């Protein structure tokens, strides 16, 4: 529906990501590099998943179970990859600290580590938005629009843009929660992340039911809000604890 609508959909999906990028990440070049590498990792994990599932696609049935297996395996694989990502992050942290010692600069601050986690999460979210929403948005720049059978009330592009928005937020902040959880060793945080991801992905299964997207979309936004709130509480607690321990030295 014309260039204006296409740009609008892009901004719906990527608005918060772009503002995060411009305000936080663009200022530090290393975070941009972290973002690019984490986007690449997510893409590689997606390609591996697509390769594993290629033989079974296209799924012709309208039953629920093939899609739920798809979702379960995909989310499980990605959460497994997240642990690997965290190991890489620890190694990088050690290298950065060694480098900081060599050039006699201070080691990584707590806020630095959280910024790195944020950049990593934003890379994942960006990759999701780009591959699941933006790459399919090309017809939206033309003169017409498209409706899916199961959801005749909202244009397809708008639904995918809103879902992408929800997932950008979920991916970004669950990376912050996950890294903090693995660093501190708190089970609650470590369990929360795969749980939230799985629930969000299962919510999109509701979209398979005719008219389900009217319920699925708000639920997904609630899930994204929950992740945001949890991450906010976690970071707040961590920073205040850190302040008090430092001032008590």
């Amino acid at each position, binding site marked *: 529906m014309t260039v204006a609508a296409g740009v609008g959909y892009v901004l719906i999906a990527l608005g918060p990501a772009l503002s995060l990028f411009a305000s936080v990440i663009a*200022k*530090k*070049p*290393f975070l*941009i*590099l972290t973002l*690019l*590498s984490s986007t*690449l990792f997510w*893409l590689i994990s*997606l*390609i591996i998943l*697509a*390769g594993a599932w*290629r033989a079974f*696609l*296209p*799924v012709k049935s309208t039953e629920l179970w093939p*899609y739920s297996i*798809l979702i379960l395996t995909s*989310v499980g694989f990605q959460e497994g990859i997240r642990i690997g990502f965290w190991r890489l992050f620890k190694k990088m942290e050690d290298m*950065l*600290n060694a*480098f*900081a010692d*060599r*050039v*006699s*600069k*201070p*080691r*990584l*601050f*707590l806020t630095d580590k959280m910024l*790195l986690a944020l950049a990593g999460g934003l890379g994942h979210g960006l990759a999701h938005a*780009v*591959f*699941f*929403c*933006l*790459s*399919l948005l*090309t017809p939206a720049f033309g003169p017409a629009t498209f409706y*899916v059978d199961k*959801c005749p009330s909202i244009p397809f592009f708008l*639904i*995918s843009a809103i*879902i*992408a928005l929800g*997932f950008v937020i979920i991916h970004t902040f669950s990376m912050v929660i996950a890294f903090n959880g693995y660093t501190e060793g708190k089970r609650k945080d470590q369990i929360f992340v795969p749980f939230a*991801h799985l629930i*969000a992905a299962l919510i*999109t*299964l509701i*979209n*398979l039911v005719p008219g389900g*997207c009217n319920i699925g979309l708000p639920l997904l936004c609630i899930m994204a809000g929950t992740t945001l709130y949890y991450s906010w509480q976690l970071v707040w607690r961590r920073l205040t604890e850190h302040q008090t*321990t*430092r001032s008590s*030295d």
Partner: protein
Amino acid sequence: MDDRSADSDPVTAGESSILDTLGEDVIRIVSPVSLCMVLVVLLVSSLSSTNDLSSSISSLFLSSTTTPTSFSSLNLLLLGSDSTWEEIKSALVTALSFVVVVTLLTFLLVLLFYFRCTNFLRIYMGISSLFVLSFLGGFISLLLISHLKIPIDPFTFAILLFNLSVVGVFAVFMPKFPISMNQGYLVAIGVLTAYWFTMLPEWTTWALLIAMSLYDLAAVLLPIGPLRLLVELAMSRNEEIPALVYEARPVDPQPGDRVRVWRERTDVRIEATENSTNSANVQTVQETRLAVSEEITAPLIEAFPQTGDRHLGTEEEEDGIGLGSSGAIKLGLGDFIFYSVLVGRAAMYDYMTVYACYLAIMAGLGVTLLLLAVYRKALPALPVSIMLGVVFYLLTRVLLEVFVVQCSSNLLMF
């Protein structure tokens, strides 16, 4: 515990973290490459909707004056769309003949450089840049004007084109020009040349990319490779090779940073001038022995030029990656062009391949920079990125697209 404990508050300590400045020179080379790719993708997607007849006539017009590509284009036009096997055969022939021509011309360049005909080379390159900016730029502007229906009269157009081309030639070759104009015009030359290359037929483009990356690998790393000879010649004479090279703006040295040095086997020297990359005059070099400790992350290579004749046999660009006189990273314009050709060709299929190939090329560039920091000699920048780009293009087209479309059309996302 001193102030520099792991968790000190940056605001009260008043010190900046290493995260503030690390990786800045890499970003300064990643941004123009990304910009070039974005512009080529925009050009390709806005101009590809011109009807087939006009675009094929235009490619016929251009290709009739070039030896390597005329064969396949004329062949395709005269015989209509061939079977895939015919296309592959003609693509291989074209790519092979192109590589042979480039090799011969690079050896010619080495010969000319050996006999110190540097003025001839500079004038030649100036004329070829003028050609690219005026003819190619004019042609592509005409396509854009007719496509976007911009109202402009021929006289204004001629004056603008003349001005922009002449200033472009000066910006690229005069040593004291403002660096942003220099960089901007280099990116513009890269965009124009890359767009022209995307007008080749599909199989030919892919065969050409793979052939050029293999040639780059051979020419730089083999002992008889022309580029290696050129680099060693330039190093032994302390001269800059006249070539089109993008040099990133040097990073301001922070207090406490080591000075980046230019290392050549045994001696350590620092160039006196800042922006001079393309002057053929021998630079006044201060041979200073500095007691400097290990460099940081900057790759330490000489200016690494490769002059490959790209189109119409009139242009020389550089390939490969190296360290400039002021310590900034240098990337040859040929690399810009071939990265953008790959992404532009991916754009002709779908945007998903564009994103995947962009990420692959950035990954390849990162790997090349890492290898540069480890090996400390001239390295080709094409092979890793192009190979990764081709692999990701194939994987996306075969595997990813079906998967993503299947999931998204059912509104199933994770």
